[in-house]
């Protein structure tokens, strides 16, 4: 029983193919995690890296509190079930299950007890003397499960264990595995390409595509709040309906105009409050997603609905309890090819629908999903990243709603009307501006608050639930962006400073009382200056590169303005001036052509030296763009 921690895990093959990209995840003890995605998305590779069957190219993998990157599979205390069972064909079922324990030199009586107990749980006691070839597929997979559970591992890894079984057996084994998880009370990591398996089994699901994590969430949240179009389309059957369209806000309504047909919907703005306002201009291309079960054809519900649309039925699939109605929003279309306006609706079972019939449908407006047509990311996030407001700058003051916020000297901005992008995490709760709490919603352990200040509704993020309706908020002005005619006139302070460099080895002669010794030291060479590295950095660098390759590789060193200080020696830089944000001051300086920002409390000019804190430094390999530290 143990938790798992995967930090910046990469798998890069010698030909440069990245199978897994920057995989980050914390898996708690006793969780049932499912990796799901289409073929080649890197889910099995990630599992095999956890098992120790694939080498980890970069990153840190912990099982419990132990870093296991360099440990053999047997030392990781894991067990794995393979898609093709991988039983030992020349051994009996008993020997197959006992093999792992024999390798651990467990006493015979103990092996016997554990094998019989596992066989009892899985219902294979009577087959213990048989060979694998005398058993059916389902029984073999039970043996494979038995072989894994007798070892009582910290983590159970299952690589598509049900893919080779027929549909009926698969459903049965699925519930058996879930029951097994409850009974064993250990951490399970399960790989599948079947979204039904993922949704029914996992406590949390990792959706992957082309080596990248798309979303990690509970089955419910994946279904209700897909982070992008891929996740929305992958989770749920039949697949979510997608339509290209544009959104235009007209007062209290938003008009959804379908690009490929004449249809349109008028939706109350309240249902789309979280939509990033820049998408409501009637120009930007947007993709609307609507699940088949979120559209109704029931005449009563349609009559009561304020928003309806028409569709032309092409054909119907009777599934018994429900009927899948296939149709098209383009009422003039009668072809059979797939169109951008096709729609599937889940209706009640045994309803009489005829092909060619035009029916009225009503969508559930609270279940609308909206995605950017280009990036395919959701534009209806659970926590909006930014508040989008129109503002006026006048005499060094920022005005929006009825609020006037003095701009600090670090933000020079010409007077006039502009757009303000205020990140939701730039609103603090230790300021002077009075605000009223309108709503509070818990999302992933954080709280999304809707507050009203100066007549403007703002989204803010809090770590704890608010205790009172009356709040005092402040604005972290170094995070704001002000735009005029699409151009940034005020940009936020960069959160990360980057400098190029290398990693080098130094041989130093050290004189002690008895003799002179040669000591090898490893250093980060940042912008030509050597800085001592830490043991942790050394370990990660050597884990990611074999041999002397680490010394011939170019790196990008990253540190925040808070992770570097001005010192007597270090990276030579030129102070360019101080940015005064009121509460905090930052020194703008240059190293070569790079601009850097450093937290500083006094006026400094001329040549200075910067010393990054090795504990807070991030290191990225430049060529393959792989995060090492």
């Amino acid at each position, binding site marked *: 029983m143990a938790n798992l921690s995967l930090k910046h895990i990469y798998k890069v093959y010698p030909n440069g193919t990245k199978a897994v990209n920057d995989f980050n995840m914390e898996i708690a003890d006793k969780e049932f995690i499912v990796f799901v995605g289409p073929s080649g998305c890197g889910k099995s590779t990630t599992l095999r890296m956890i*098992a120790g069957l694939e080498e980890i190219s970069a990153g840190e993998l912990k099982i419990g509190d132990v870093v296991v990157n360099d440990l053999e599979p047997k030392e990781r205390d894991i067990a794995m079930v393979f898609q093709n069972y991988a039983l030992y064909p020349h051994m009996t079922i008993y020997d197959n299950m006992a093999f792992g324990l024999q390798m651990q030199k467990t006493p015979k009586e103990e092996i016997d007890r554990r094998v019989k107990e596992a066989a009892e749980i899985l219902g294979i006691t009577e087959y213990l003397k048989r060979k694998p070839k005398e058993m059916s597929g389902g029984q073999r997979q039970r043996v494979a499960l038995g072989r894994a559970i007798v070892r009582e591992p910290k983590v159970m890894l299952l690589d598509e264990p049900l893919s080779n079984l027929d549909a009926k057996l698969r459903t049965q084994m699925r519930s058996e595995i879930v029951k097994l998880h409850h009974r064993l009370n250990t951490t399970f990591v399960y790989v599948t390409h079947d979204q039904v398996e993922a949704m029914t089994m996992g406590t949390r699901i990792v959706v992957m595509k082309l080596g990248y994590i798309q979303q990690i969430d509970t089955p419910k949240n994946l279904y209700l709040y897909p982070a992008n179009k891929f996740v929305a389309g992958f989770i749920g059957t039949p697949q979510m309906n997608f339509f290209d369209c544009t959104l235009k806000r007209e007062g209290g309504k938003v008009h959804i105009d379908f690009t490929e047909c004449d249809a349109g919907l008028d939706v109350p703005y309240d249902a789309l409050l979280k939509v990033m306002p820049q998408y409501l201009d009637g120009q930007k291309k947007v993709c609307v997603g609507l699940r088949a079960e979120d559209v109704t054809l029931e005449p009563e519900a349609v009559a009561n609905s304020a928003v309806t649309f028409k569709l032309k039925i092409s054909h119907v699939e009777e599934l018994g309890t429900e009927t899948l109605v296939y149709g098209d929003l383009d009422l003039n279309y009668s072809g059979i090819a797939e169109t951008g306006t096709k729609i599937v609706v889940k209706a009640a079972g045994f309803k009489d629908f005829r092909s060619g019939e035009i029916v009225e449908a009503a969508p559930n407006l609270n279940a609308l999903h909206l995605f950017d047509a280009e990036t395919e990311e959701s534009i209806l996030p659970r926590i909006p990243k930014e508040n989008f407001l129109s503002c006026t700058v006048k005499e060094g003051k920022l005005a929006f709603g009825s609020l006037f916020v003095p701009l600090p000297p670090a933000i020079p901005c010409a007077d006039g009307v502009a757009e303000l992008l205020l990140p939701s995490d730039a609103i603090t709760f230790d300021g002077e501006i009075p605000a009223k709490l309108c709503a509070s919603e818990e999302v992933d352990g954080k709280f999304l608050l809707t507050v009203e200040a100066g007549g403007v509704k703002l989204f803010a993020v809090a770590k704890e639930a608010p205790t009172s309706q009356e709040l005092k908020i402040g604005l972290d002005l170094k995070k704001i962006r002000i735009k005029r005619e699409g151009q940034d006139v005020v940009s936020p302070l960069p959160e990360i400073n980057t400098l190029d460099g290398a990693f080098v080895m130094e041989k130093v002669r050290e004189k002690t009382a008895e003799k002179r010794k040669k000591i090898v030291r490893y250093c980060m060479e940042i912008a030509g200056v050597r800085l001592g590295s830490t043991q942790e950095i050394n370990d990660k660098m050597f884990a990611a590169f074999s041999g002397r390759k680490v010394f011939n590789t170019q790196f990008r060193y990253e540190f925040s303005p808070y992770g570097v200080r001005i010192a007597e020696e270090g990276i030579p830089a030129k102070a360019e001036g101080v940015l005064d944000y009121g509460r905090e001051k930052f020194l703008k300086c240059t190293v070569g052509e790079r601009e850097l920002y450093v937290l500083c409390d006094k006026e400094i000019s001329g040549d200075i030296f910067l010393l990054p804190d090795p504990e807070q430094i991030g290191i990225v390999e430049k060529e393959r763009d792989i995060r090492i530290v």
Partner: protein
Amino acid sequence: MKKRKIRPQKLFGVAITYLAILAVCFVFLFPILWLVLASFSKTGSIYSFRGFFPTEYSFDSFVKLFSDTEMYNYPRWFLNTLFISLMSSLFGTTLTILTAYCMSRFRFKSRKALMKTTLVLGMFPSFMTMTAVYILMTQFNLINQQWGLILIYSAGAPMGYLTQKGFFDTISVSIDEAARIDGASNFKIFVRITLPLAAPMIVYTLLSSFVWPWSDFILPKLLLKNKDLYTVAVGLMALDNTEFSRFAAGSVFIAVPIVIFYFALSKFLINGLSAGAVKQ
């Protein structure tokens, strides 16, 4: 019931096929038949044959082969050959199986180059290197020693590792991986998982690496000078011209161990040992 009519074209085709089979069988079997009959010739000389076949038949040649050992010690040669072949077969099989396993399971630098080089080197006939082998063996003082021959046969055997590698490739890697996760080392996986599954291939390798030294003539002729150390092939060639039926009897008898060896091991030469391991 209606009688099926055979079309003349079809009849002609079948007749041609059977005629061809008969012709091929004759070409294959006639020399063997002739040798077997010659070994039973009473006179012993090839000149006393009437046409192709001997005039009189007897067991004399076989009796003489094992009783008249003063000049030509056939039993001795037979034991020499058996010793050299068995040893070469054991060592050769071990090396071939290990080579094939490494090439199939491990990925190391220049593995492919090594595989190709070995394959090409294995294609050169052994007599091409005769002079070099002779000089090397003289240097190591291995002329006139059976171990010298065993060394050459065993070391040459892994050149033909490709069949064995192909067999190991068919054993699913996930079985190895399952064993690794179960805590087995590479050696344990090889001994406890791979070898039992590779039994048919080991038997095949044992047989094929037995046959080469058993019937080889060139290398023993080159390295063995002492008559007591001769193998059957070298010994038979040293027979006098008039001893033809003894030569034939010796050649026929040489097949006996191979046949015994084959029947003893044939029960292992079955397919499907790894059935049930993985879902194909």
